[in-house]
């Protein structure tokens, strides 16, 4: 297997708010290997974005980050400002969710991509920079690149703008691309195109790709391995196939059960009842316990740690019996 490019250990993020702290990320261990596509899945507020933003020092000033995250063996948490800045956009590229607002409206897109290059290669001659911009636009499959360079963001459609964002992120051939909900703001048809562009880029440059999303469909299409996050923790992780077909955590199973499927027409979708716990008032035991159908007494008292069960790692006391118990309950209901 390839060497580990990014490794987080016991990474935690707290936001200081009036009257206490919100524990957005609580001890996350994630490994990303060179050339691999890792999906991080979870609902809003599960800490999936905060985990990745914490690495790059992009969180709001009221955030406190602890634990460790090393990139190529370099510790990033608490690293000097200048060192992080050199990593951002240089060896780590970032693609944001909303291409409508993430581009500067008063600069041409070519100018903005050029800036990403100039920041990291200040000695490059302007002509070479512009040639590279055009090349990048062609790489992300924008037709007529030499003309599009001179367009302003409002002259481009959402999909085009997201391509521009991707071009900015990969301008300096990063080793790691972090895509934070890259397709959420786009039409379904465009989503597929953007994912294809990202996957193409990854295989071309052998960089690693982390896709943060709430959309299991996105993950199923492109990821090699998946981390499922809930209430600031990774509750289950494993190879994508295993996670979809042999998952062990009731939350993962619940997420998959509430997806509409073509082969279960006419049947009601099964939402997960309840709501996630408040991150400033977490229960003592498992964070999922109040919504779990198969919870046992010990689930209320002891927070489960990740452990290997079958082909996946799961943080659940009841596993491996949990998902089979849920299936049995479903059979009884039917």
């Amino acid at each position, binding site marked *: 297997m390839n060497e580990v490019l990014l490794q987080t250990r016991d990474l935690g993020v707290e936001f200081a708010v009036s009257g206490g702290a919100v524990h957005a990320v609580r001890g996350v261990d994630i490994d990303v290997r060179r050339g691999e596509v890792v999906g991080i899945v979870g609902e809003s507020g599960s800490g999936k974005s905060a985990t990745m933003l914490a690495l*790059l020092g*992009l969180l709001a000033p009221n955030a406190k980050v602890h634990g460790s995250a090393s990139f190529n063996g370099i510790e990033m948490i608490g690293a000097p400002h200048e060192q992080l*800045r*050199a*990593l*951002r*956009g*240089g060896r780590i*590229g*970032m693609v*944001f969710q*909303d291409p*409508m*607002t*993430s*581009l*500067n*409206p*008063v*600069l*041409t897109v070519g100018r903005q991509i050029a*800036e*990403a290059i100039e*920041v*990291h290669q200040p000695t490059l001659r302007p002509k070479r920079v512009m040639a590279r911009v055009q090349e990048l636009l062609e790489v992300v499959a924008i*037709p*007529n690149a030499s*003309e*599009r360079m*001179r*367009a*302003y963001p*409002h*002259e*481009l*459609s*959402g*999909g*085009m703008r997201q391509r521009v*964002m991707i071009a*900015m*992120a990969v*301008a300096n051939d990063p080793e790691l691309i972090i895509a934070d909900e890259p397709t959420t703001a786009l*039409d379904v*048809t*465009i989503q597929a*195109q953007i994912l294809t562009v990202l996957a193409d880029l990854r295989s071309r440059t052998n960089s690693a790709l982390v896709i943060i999303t709430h959309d299991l469909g996105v993950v199923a299409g492109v990821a090699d391995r998946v981390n499922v996050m809930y209430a600031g923790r990774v509750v289950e992780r494993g190879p994508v196939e295993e996670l979809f077909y042999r998952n062990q955590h009731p939350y993962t199973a619940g997420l998959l059960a509430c997806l509409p499927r073509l082969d279960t027409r006419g049947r009601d979708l099964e939402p997960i009842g309840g709501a996630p716990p408040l991150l400033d008032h977490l229960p003592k035991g498992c964070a999922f316990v109040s919504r779990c159908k198969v919870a046992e007494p010990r689930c209320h008292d002891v927070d489960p740690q990740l452990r290997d069960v079958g082909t996946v790692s799961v943080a659940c006391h009841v596993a491996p019996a949990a998902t089979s118990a849920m299936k049995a309950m479903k059979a009884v209901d039917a």
Partner: protein
Amino acid sequence: MTVADESSVDDFQPQPAEPDPGRKRSWRKLVRRPQIAFGLIVCFIWLVVILTVHWWAPYDPYESVGDRLQPPNGDFWFGTDALGRDVFTRVLYGARQSLPIAVAVIASAVLIGSVLGAAAGFLGGWVDRVVMRLADVTMAFPAILLAMAVAAALGPGLKNGFIAMVIVWWPIYARLLRAQVIAVKQREHIESAVSIGATQGRILRKHVLPLSFTGVLVNATMDLGQVVLLTASLSFLGLGALPPAPEWGAMITEGAKYFYQWWIAVAPGVAMVTVVLAFNFLGDGLRDALDVKAATR
């Protein structure tokens, strides 16, 4: 600013992108607004006066050239003052006093205020607190009162008046720019600039300031008129230009002594009205033209 193709399914449809002709068109659109056109024309006339008046003015502004206190007539269009000087000539020369000082005051105030305001908004923390408290303290005084106090402390004269007015005016721009910078700083494209590794200085220069400056530009244009008025007010009170300088406010002071010789005070007053009106129109027009939200509403 929204564009019709946002939801376009066909992502590959080429769209025309011609930024340069567009820019030219918007300039023409700007000039075609009657407010802006009026403002520009009046400003242009006064500019020509300032630059060329010494070639064609009918008389010398400092010399007694006829009988004193003559009402307007064919030789002296706006009459003569108590010393027999031509009022029309003095009004024209007055522009040389008031307008350059207005421009200088606004330019200095914008410069100082912008630097401090941008630093306060962008850096936040103690810089923000110090600058804003200073601004609050300054703005707590009525403008004319503070200007008078400063001018009185430094002694009369246009130079000290200038210093006084800059002290009065910088907080307006500091607050304006600070508010804009804070608003723009939170936009997502700033975060994406951070994520490509741009330095703080670069982000402020290239991404924050260009989007924050509209309000300052509009306000500065309107304030030009206000400074002309304040300069005249200081001179009127004897704290600005000193006699015999042909300054509008000082001329009005002289005119006030001769109540029945109305032309002595009215002529510089009318000149001031045209200038202030022109700057206000220009500022109003600019605000309407630059306020994207209002334009698309």
